[in-house]
């Protein structure tokens, strides 16, 4: 045990996290004591918390990249950028939630859970220790389950939540024994211990690593633990769906990257395995999206396929300088696109049948534009950030010799055009059948701001690329 002074210094490394915890508690207390019509204040408090946390994070960007808390937590560029993405996404989710939950009397606690869920993702992104990883996963998952079930009178929400929960519980439970094995092999729980302690060509390590990857696969919605994604996207409250299909992924991906970085090259064949998972995930996600008539479900499946693309960056981790930038840029492109798409859904009061979108461009051109930008970014059409992301993913996959994976991804991209266009075509060329009432300004602006972010980060990619290039992903 170190001295108290050291402890104080260490606390300085997690100021944003502390801000989130305190903010969450403040919001909870506010919600307990504020009157029914003042509950919206909780949203403002949550927004303030996110802002403060973001500012604290930004301040830390200039600091040295280190692993702190006795090897359990990284304060490096990767974690900080992930934090920023998570926080921005959380802010956007708050923007979407205010109008959506306006009639819900338990408005306040929602934001506490949202902040804690964001905290879970943030901690996951920085975890360099299996214990911290498990707890962060748990925090992120547990809050996610509850948020998903937040509509007490919604039967689809309840169904989605319980499926989400069951798959998560299975993955988590299985994960634990894997972690136990890795601990036994390495003699410690930090990633550093894994990096040094894992024996070569060990079948035990195979089981352990496989189970851990399964756990993360659940978190990021990859095959084989992907089944919850479409259900949650369809059944959960739309802002929650936007949040849950995007934010935990940021943490999950970052930890996966750190985890594979810790694996000694010769111990397990993780590259090929991740590549196969990537291929399976993107292909399944795309194929299943093809004939969806429900937009939210379609977005869920497309989120699965996007996870598959993102996994391409993981394949290259440790062997390509661009792997980490590619991963971060992918997240930078994917998260706002997801928020924009769901944001449009929220603004249209959760309208979800694809046929109901006919004539959107005539009735609500701005929303149609937002939806189109988001979809085109998903496809990877330049100059949107989705294109830069996909380009980087292709580059790193090819650079490490996984050209076949890039080809699979390309084929999948072509397939994906079909279902995105299946939504966009009626929206742009169809006739308006009924007026399209909207929810409120906040959701519209959030959706459009997210869509605008796609254009901005796509064209002005350099600042981000330069920053990402300098990013380290530390495990010791």
């Amino acid at each position: 045990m170190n001295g108290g002074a050291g402890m104080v210094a260490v606390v300085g490394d997690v100021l944003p996290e502390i801000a989130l915890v305190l903010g969450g508690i403040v919001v909870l207390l506010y919600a307990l004591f504020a009157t029914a019509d003042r509950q919206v204040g909780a949203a403002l408090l949550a927004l303030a918390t996110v802002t403060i946390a973001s500012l604290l994070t930004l301040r830390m960007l200039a600091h040295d990249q280190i692993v702190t808390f006795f090897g359990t937590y990284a304060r490096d560029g990767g974690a900080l950028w992930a934090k920023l993405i998570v926080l921005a996404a959380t802010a956007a989710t708050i923007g979407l939630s205010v109008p959506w939950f306006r009639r819900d009397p338990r408005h306040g606690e929602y934001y506490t859970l949202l902040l804690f869920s964001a905290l879970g993702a943030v901690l996951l992104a920085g975890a360099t220790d299996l214990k911290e990883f498990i707890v962060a996963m748990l925090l992120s998952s547990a809050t996610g389950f509850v948020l998903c079930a937040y509509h007490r009178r919604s039967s689809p929400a309840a169904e989605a939540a319980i499926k989400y929960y069951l798959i998560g519980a299975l993955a988590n439970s299985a994960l634990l024994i894997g972690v136990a094995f890795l601990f036994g092999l390495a003699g410690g729980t930090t990633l550093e211990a894994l990096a040094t302690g894992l024996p070569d060509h060990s079948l035990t390590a195979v089981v352990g690593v496989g189970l851990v990857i399964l756990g993360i696969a659940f978190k990021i919605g990859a095959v084989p633990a992907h089944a919850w994604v479409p259900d949650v996207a369809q059944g959960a409250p739309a802002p929650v769906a936007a949040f849950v299909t995007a934010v935990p992924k940021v943490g999950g991906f970052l930890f996966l990257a750190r985890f594979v970085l810790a694996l000694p090259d010769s111990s397990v064949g993780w590259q090929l395995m991740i590549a196969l998972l990537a291929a399976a995930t993107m292909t399944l996600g795309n194929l299943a999206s093809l004939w969806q008539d429900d937009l939210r479900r379609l977005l869920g499946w497309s989120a699965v396929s996007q996870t598959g693309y993102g996994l391409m960056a993981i394949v290259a981790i440790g062997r390509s300088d661009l792997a980490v930038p590619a991963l971060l840029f992918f997240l930078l492109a994917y998260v706002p696109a997801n928020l924009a798409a769901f944001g449009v859904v929220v603004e249209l009061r959760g309208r979800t049948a694809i046929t109901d979108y006919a004539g959107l461009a005539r009735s609500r051109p701005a929303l149609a534009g937002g939806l189109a930008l988001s979809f085109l970014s998903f496809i990877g059409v330049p100059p949107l950030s989705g294109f830069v992301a996909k380009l980087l993913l292709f580059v790193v996959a090819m650079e490490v010799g996984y050209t076949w994976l890039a080809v699979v991804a390309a084929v999948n991209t072509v397939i994906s055009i079909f279902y995105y266009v299946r939504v966009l075509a009626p929206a742009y060329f169809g006739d308006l059948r009924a007026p399209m009432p909207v929810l409120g300004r906040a959701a519209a602006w959030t959706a459009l701001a997210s869509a605008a972010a796609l254009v901005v980060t796509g064209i002005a990619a350099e600042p981000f690329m330069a920053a990402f290039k300098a990013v380290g992903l530390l495990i010791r």
Partner: protein
Amino acid sequence: MITGPIVDAAFFLFAAGAIISGYRVFRTDSMVRAAFYLLASFAAVGGILVLLGSEFLGMVLILMMAGEMLIMAIVMVMFMMNPAGLNPMVMVHQNRVAALAGVVAFLALGGVALLGEFPSRPAPKPAAATRELGEELLGDSMLVFQTAGVTLLATMIGAIAITSSRGRHGSAEEGSSEPPLQPDEEDKA
């Protein structure tokens, strides 16, 4: 860590108890009985933990499970179909596939155990385990500990948010659903 034939005997007793009661969980007619089998299995494992020199974890496990099983029984009695959940029933699906998966899992993990790839690094001073844990909690693993705390807090808030039927401002059900597609339906909802 204690060794010797008595320990071995105790281990075998506990091991048999854990496995048999674990198996009985899914081979019994009544949910309540299944819950108590599960408790028994956990208790047996707790015993093994104590044998292995991890008294703290063992005891916590047993205590926690006892509490949990109590809740589980209540939940079953309160909510489940069969009143009291005591009646005989078999509710199984895809039995063969599940059995296959279970056997495969057992073989895989058992294989791992037999491969003997784990290094041999016995714990030097088992008696100090609990104290060391305390140091760990407040020292090296402080962040983990704090995170776990937040997680438990979040769990409590979440569980209450979902289950409590009474909100602060009237029924928790009121208005807790998606906004209707047409605004004018809002009033009715």
